[in-house]
């Protein structure tokens, strides 16, 4: 479990995160949603240690990440996997080398074992016959899969995904969401996804954290999302007329069922 306690982050005078508290549970897809500039990326970067919060605590299974020294932090980082918005694949390495990189760097496994593990995770993300291709030679959706494969190759306890659907068509987005959800359950990972994709919110939101102007405005799950009265959240999620109508229809169904 990951616990955030009163996380604050300032850039000069501007306070971007204003005391965020949250708990992210294992085996669940925990979503952080909010408009652009609401502090989602800063929150995820503070959680994984790419930024140091101005104050507050980040607890990975009760281990305070911020107070740790460099070596202890490195140990925790080996339990993390992260999928970046732009995939962050190494351009000069092939798909196989990208996925194998954490194994090469941190394990003493023989090459044959490493290859087996790489093929296993590539198969798991439904990516076959791409081992020798460079990232520039495969599609955006395939690059996402490689990013996921690299993130899970060390069997992490915690998986972070920053905008996993960015740049993908709706159908591929859903496939990637489903893959993240399946892997979360399969590896019992604590998954934190930063998104503003509606399909992800409705499809995968086991737990949803809504940020607005650096504050936690709402917390719940995908079911309670439809019933919320939080104006900012409703305006954010059900932004188009089509989605508003869909929400009204869903609420009408709920009411009928309850009566």
């Amino acid at each position, binding site marked *: 479990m990951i616990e955030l306690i009163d996380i604050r982050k300032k850039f000069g005078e501007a306070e971007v995160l204003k005391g965020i508290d949250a708990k992210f549970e294992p085996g669940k897809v925990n979503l952080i949603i909010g408009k652009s500039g609401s502090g989602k990326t800063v929150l995820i970067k503070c959680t994984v240690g790419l930024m140091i919060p101005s104050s507050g605590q980040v607890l990975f299974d009760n281990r305070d990440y911020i107070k740790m020294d460099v070596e202890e932090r490195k140990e925790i980082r080996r339990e993390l996997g992260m999928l*970046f918005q732009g995939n*962050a694949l190494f*351009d000069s390495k092939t798909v196989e080398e990208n996925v194998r990189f*954490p194994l090469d*760097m941190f394990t003493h496994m023989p090459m044959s074992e490493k290859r087996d593990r790489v093929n296993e995770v590539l198969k798991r993300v439904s990516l076959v016959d791409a081992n020798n291709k460079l990232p520039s030679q495969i599609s955006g959706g395939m690059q996402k899969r490689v990013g996921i494969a690299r993130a899970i190759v060390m069997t992490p306890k915690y998986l972070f995904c920053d905008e996993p659907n960015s740049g993908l068509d709706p159908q591929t987005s859903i496939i990637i969401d489903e893959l993240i959800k399946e892997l979360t359950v399969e590896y019992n990972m604590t998954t934190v996804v930063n998104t503003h994709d509606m399909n992800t919110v409705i499809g995968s939101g086991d737990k949803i954290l809504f940020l607005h102007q650096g504050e936690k405005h709402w917390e719940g799950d995908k079911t309670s999302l439809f019933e919320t009265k939080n104006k900012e959240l409703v305006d954010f999620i059900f932004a188009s007329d089509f989605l508003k109508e869909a929400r009204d229809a869903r609420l009408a169904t709920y009411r009928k069922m309850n009566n």
Partner: protein
Amino acid sequence: MDSLYQLGKYMLMLKSLFVRPERKAMYWVEMLRQMHQIGVDSIIIVFIISFFIGAVSAVQFAYNLSTTITPMYFVGYIVKESMILEFAPTVTCLILAGKVGSNVASELGTMRLTEQIDALEIMGVNTTAYLVGPKILAAITMIPLLVVFAAVTGIWGGMLAGAASGYVSTTEYTQGVLSWFVPLNALIMMIKAVVFSFLIVSISCFQGFYAYGGALDIGKASTRAVVLGCILVLVADYLIAWLML
């Protein structure tokens, strides 16, 4: 004030290189890749430039000496000394400040912008040690070899051009090259090569590693790397000459 801040940041980057590698083999592979990129990929440009510098020097010295009573074998001696002391280390490194410096700064800058450096950080890799260390080691291994290659090519180019111009025969030229060899000059050439290569690559790494913004900023970081690299090579050239001659 900002210059002091940048200097401090640069020193901290250098300090962070001195850590135990997570996996030596991975650093070694990266160093070999960089040795190829910095050294092998620069052979042709270094050959062309040093050949013509030697050739032009020989023809011009020969032209100037032709109206004096100075023996023509002095052309070989002067070309050798100027190649060893100045042209080979300084001009080669100025060229490499442009070629290698911009390449290194833009490679690291792109890695920063596309979050590849963040990805390494998340994995627990010491990013400065893994990305910067092998580049500096590769440079201080390969650039001195390129400088020696440049000196030899320049002297050879001078011989061919001198003979082709009819001013100085290959026998006279060779006699000059073999005369009055000063080992200190060769030592100075190697010291210059090591110092310059360290400056060129460490500054380029610093500019690229801490780049932020967009494509435009990567371009600016590359330009800064080249300009700063060239200036510092010239300053270091003067300081080494002043201290050692």
